[in-house]
């Protein structure tokens, strides 16, 4: 019975929990509710993934109205995969959130924080699960509005301006997206993604559809912070409360990438848009520039949260590069990096959350001697950093390997070389932190061992050990990503 309604439960449970939080108001009660809800969501998403693996695509018609008139939810391999990523990050972040949020967010605003976390998760899950292009916009705005609020909860006033800029850019991006959807509707009369995929090829040659594609691409590229539309991201990540950064970095951009994949490979899948309109080269070029620019700027950051944010830009470059290859190998490399990057960047930002919790700053200079003071936390940073570089035995290696193989399959060997070189830039920025934390003697702070609380260190290590585990056993994730990519590419034909 429940099984049949899993797709809607996935979205409706966090959505309903959000207003309850507002009524509860009590920080601990709201936290408990949010945590439980995030775990239920995780259970549902895993259940869904298993169903999809066993029985293929699930189609759920809301209110019994059949598509294309009604809104339908569709769970295929790809969306089930992204659902699991989002919910598992949520499930790990919520227990962590309690202490971190108490430290970095005013007490009387804590219930807003949990409400917004739930709404944000609702939006992200909705984007992933919906089969309707306009519905996707609505969920996009739900998650975005929630994340603007989350960022502005920071006690640092720069959090406010970061949230404001993100609001402006995000709204422009979302509006671009609905312009694109509107233009498609104009030509096809449909908003259903699967239906659009069938109708688009007939009208693909018109200028309206080409304009639609341009609006959709730019809009989503803004949301996923593809270079050069990334300006909102570094400050938003750097000045948001740490736990918000963890959640957004690990999920929000990933879901935006998912939406992008849906548009490019499902809606426009029928006409193989990457090749027919030459966007392939453009995307690949932007991705490569992002890889280098992101890493290079990261090297010069003094705020480590900001540094990791720039590193995210570079990692998004890897993902987009994989997608731009337009092959099963490339897409699955991109998708597997989606997961892997969520693990390692989530873990790294959690480390920074622990650091901020203890020393109240994310500045590099203040981190001197942390290797002695917080050995466990910093060990997690080193492991996460190794993964970011792409050292074997970590997830970073698996995704870089998959990406390199896909690139070489295409015969783009200079690009392969660039990937390797850009990894070396990651060595530099990770090493800077290691050097300061382990080899620089702190000026004032005591060298006493002073570890972050267990409830924060444990989730950090869950993510970091997952980053190691899936590095040893990379094929589990690669298989799922490969299946998802294969479904998408089947849509290409």
């Amino acid at each position: 019975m429940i099984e049949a309604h899993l797709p809607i439960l996935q979205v409706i449970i966090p959505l309903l929990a959000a207003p309850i939080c507002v009524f509860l108001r009590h920080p601990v009660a709201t936290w408990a509710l949010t945590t439980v809800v995030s775990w239920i969501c995780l259970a549902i998403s895993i259940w869904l993934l298993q169903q999809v693996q066993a029985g293929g695509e699930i189609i759920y018609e809301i209110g019994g109205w059949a598509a294309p008139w009604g809104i339908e939810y569709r769970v295929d391999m790809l969306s089930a995969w992204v659902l699991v990523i989002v919910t598992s990050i949520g499930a790990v972040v919520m227990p962590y959130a309690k202490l971190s949020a108490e430290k970095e967010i005013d007490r009387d605003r804590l219930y807003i924080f949990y409400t917004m976390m739930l709404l944000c998760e609702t939006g992200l899950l909705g984007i992933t699960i919906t089969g309707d292009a306009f519905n996707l916009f609505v969920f996009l705005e739900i998650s975005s509005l929630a994340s603007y609020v989350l960022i502005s909860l920071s006690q640092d006033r720069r959090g406010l301006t970061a949230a404001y800029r993100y609001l402006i850019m995000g709204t422009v991006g979302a509006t671009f997206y609905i312009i694109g959807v509107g233009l498609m509707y104009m030509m096809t009369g449909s908003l259903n993604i699967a239906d659009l995929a069938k109708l688009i090829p007939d009208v693909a040659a018109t200028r309206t559809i080409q304009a639609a594609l341009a609006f959709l691409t730019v809009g989503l590229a803004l949301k996923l912070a593809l270079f050069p539309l990334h300006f909102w991201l570094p400050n938003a990540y750097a000045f948001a409360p740490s736990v918000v950064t963890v959640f957004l970095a690990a999920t929000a951009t990933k879901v935006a990438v998912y939406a992008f994949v849906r548009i490019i490979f499902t809606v426009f899948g029928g006409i193989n848009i990457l090749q027919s309109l030459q966007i392939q080269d453009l995307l690949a070029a932007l991705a490569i520039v992002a890889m280098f620019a992101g890493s290079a700027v990261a090297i010069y950051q003094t705020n480590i949260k900001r540094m990791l944010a720039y590193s995210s830009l570079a990692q998004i470059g890897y993902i987009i590069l994989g997608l731009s290859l337009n092959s099963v190998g490339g897409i699955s490399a991109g998708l597997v990096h989606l997961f892997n990057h969520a693990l390692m960047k989530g873990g790294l930002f959690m480390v920074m959350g622990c650091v901020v919790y203890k020393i109240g700053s994310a500045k590099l200079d203040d981190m001197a001697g942390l290797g002695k003071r917080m050995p466990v936390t910093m060990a997690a940073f080193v492991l996460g950093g190794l993964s970011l570089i792409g050292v074997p035995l970590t997830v970073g290696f698996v995704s870089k390997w998959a990406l390199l193989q896909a690139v070489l399959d295409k015969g783009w060997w200079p690009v392969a070389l660039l990937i390797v070189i850009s990894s070396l830039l990651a060595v530099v920025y990770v090493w800077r932190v290691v050097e300061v934390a382990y080899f620089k003697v702190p000026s004032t702070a005591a060298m006493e061992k002073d570890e972050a609380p267990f409830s924060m260190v444990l989730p950090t290590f869950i993510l970091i050990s997952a980053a190691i585990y899936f590095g040893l056993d990379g094929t589990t994730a690669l298989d799922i990503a490969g299946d998802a990519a294969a479904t998408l590419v089947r849509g290409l034909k």
Partner: protein
Amino acid sequence: MEFSGLFVYWIIVALMMSGLYIVIAQNNLVKKIVGLNVFQVSVFLLYITMGKVTGGTAPILADNITVYSNPLPHVLILTAIVVGVATTSLGLALVVRIHEAYGTIEDDEILEQDDDA
């Protein structure tokens, strides 16, 4: 037909571009939000125009009505308007808080203060 038929679209494009221009060029945070509104409204108009069927009336079920406009875009735009209102109010709320924190709502002055910090 050519120009006049597309007349509404020209207006929409003009609104869209001026809205976007205001967002980018204005220094004042409130004006930026006004620009954002202009930009969004142009999109609302785009959808509504799209639903119009020449000679059609409002989509009401009645005996003597055979040709009526497509109601779906209107419904969609109701949703979009709600989203737009939410965005605007959140944006304005942020501006109020920024004013409390920085004492100004001019973008360049805020940047200056952040650089000093």
